[in-house]
């Protein structure tokens, strides 16, 4: 069977460290599945998500062993363009994800980088805003929005790239209860569309939308039994 994401025996060591941060990670995610990875701070959750999204391949922050497959193709054989078209990441801090003067410009940023035509970009902006329900904020300054709204715009800016895989790296950690509900509903909608989703979380109250939960402990991945330690 071909999985949307398949990680085989992945190890990662930062150049500045003497031990592997990730030690023999194996995981599989299917289409329309939400896999949540929980764990305490410093256990390698964000490192794992940066490895899967190919950021570390590009930035050369350490040595990566093992294999990451996206739809059966090794990450090593994919170009940066292919990876960006397939994987979208929503990060933890909304303030360092939003850098454009208006919401519209923010959402257009990715498609403009991919050199898409004006008509296509306009369609994608309309569509992404509709999906996150933020049409009325199109010309607003992202700095003036609430934490939850900012994260929805961050999500919209990823949606405009139309990826198949979404990674939410503690995307709800700086969001209030109402904002969390909004984001969870959008994740459920993405799941229904058949997107493969990996959620990185440390807040166990956000696990209700997950199909499967795994825990990352000291660089190793285990099935979650209700406790992080």
């Amino acid at each position, binding site marked *: 069977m071909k999985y949307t994401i398949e990680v085989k025996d992945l190890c990662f060591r930062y150049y500045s460290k003497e031990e592997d941060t990730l030690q023999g990670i194996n995981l599989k995610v299917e289409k329309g599945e939400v896999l949540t990875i929980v764990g305490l701070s410093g256990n390698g959750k964000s490192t794992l998500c*940066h490895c899967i*999204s190919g*950021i570390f391949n*590009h*930035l050369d922050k350490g040595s990566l062993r093992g294999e990451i497959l996206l739809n059966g193709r090794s990450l090593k054989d994919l170009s*940066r*363009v292919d990876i*960006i078209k397939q*994987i*979208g*990441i929503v*990060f933890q*801090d909304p*303030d*360092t*994800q939003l*850098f*454009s*003067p*208006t919401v519209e*410009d923010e959402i*257009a*940023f*990715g*498609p*403009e*980088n*991919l*050199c*898409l*035509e*004006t008509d296509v*970009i*306009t369609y994608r*902006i309309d569509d992404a805003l509709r999906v996150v329900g933020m049409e009325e904020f199109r010309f607003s300054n992202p*700095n003036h929005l609430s934490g939850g709204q900012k994260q929805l715009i961050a999500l919209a*800016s*990823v949606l405009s*790239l139309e990826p198949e895989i979404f990674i939410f790296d503690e995307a709800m950690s700086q969001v209030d209860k109402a904002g969390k509900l909004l984001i969870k509903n959008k994740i459920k909608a993405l799941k229904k569309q058949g997107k493969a989703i990996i959620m990185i979380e440390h807040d166990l109250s956000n696990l209700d939308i997950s199909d499967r939960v795994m825990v990352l402990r000291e660089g190793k991945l285990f099935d979650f039994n209700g406790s992080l330690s």
Partner: protein
Amino acid sequence: MLIRENKIDPRTKLTAVILISSLAVLIKDIALLLGIFSITFIIALGFGNNPLALFKKLKKLALLFMAIIIIQSSFSSGIPLLRIGSITLLTIDGFTKGILLAIRMCIIIISATIISTSSPREIVQGLIQWKIPYEIAFMVSIGIRFLPLFVDEIKDTVNAIQLRGIELDKIPIGKRMKIYSYVLMPVVATTLMKSKRLSIAMESKGFGIYPRRSSFKRLKLSKVDYLLMAAFLVGAFTIVTVYLG
């Protein structure tokens, strides 16, 4: 999509700013500089700047200008203007240099406010359409975007120091400066971390993936823009001719 939020193209404003700043640096005649200052002020008002806000900006810098005049005077030789015993405090030459520098700074500050009447997105688009590499254009835009965050970061760190029981207003200036030096390290560290996160977010959305990028917004110069640019060029040329002649 054409940008139509502002009537005047940011490239016209950039042309004005470049010409005015160049004139301010080139000209060393007080009368001409005062003339350029007046013209700059009128242009800034014409582009929709608030005159009160402009005066407030200059008022804030009044002390700095005074200091510049005094420092320039102290380090310049010439006919004394103010003496205490055998020590010359002000010279005519130094005073003139100080005044020139202060007017120059006023002109540059006022001219910079002209560009602030356009949104950062428009400015970036203008630079890109001027064939400036988009990485550099974005660097300018992100610099503008993150300046308030940097200021907030400094305020937070100063607040954190005050919460530990240090009343900055009540301690001597020497000690206060020392405490401010402690602010530097956490602010720089946080800024570096934020810039790292920002670059990862930008990279994950494909920034720099191709040598060029498309733009869903395009700027278009109107007849008014061409006329204004021509007027600025002719004006600058005339001032230079008068100065050199």
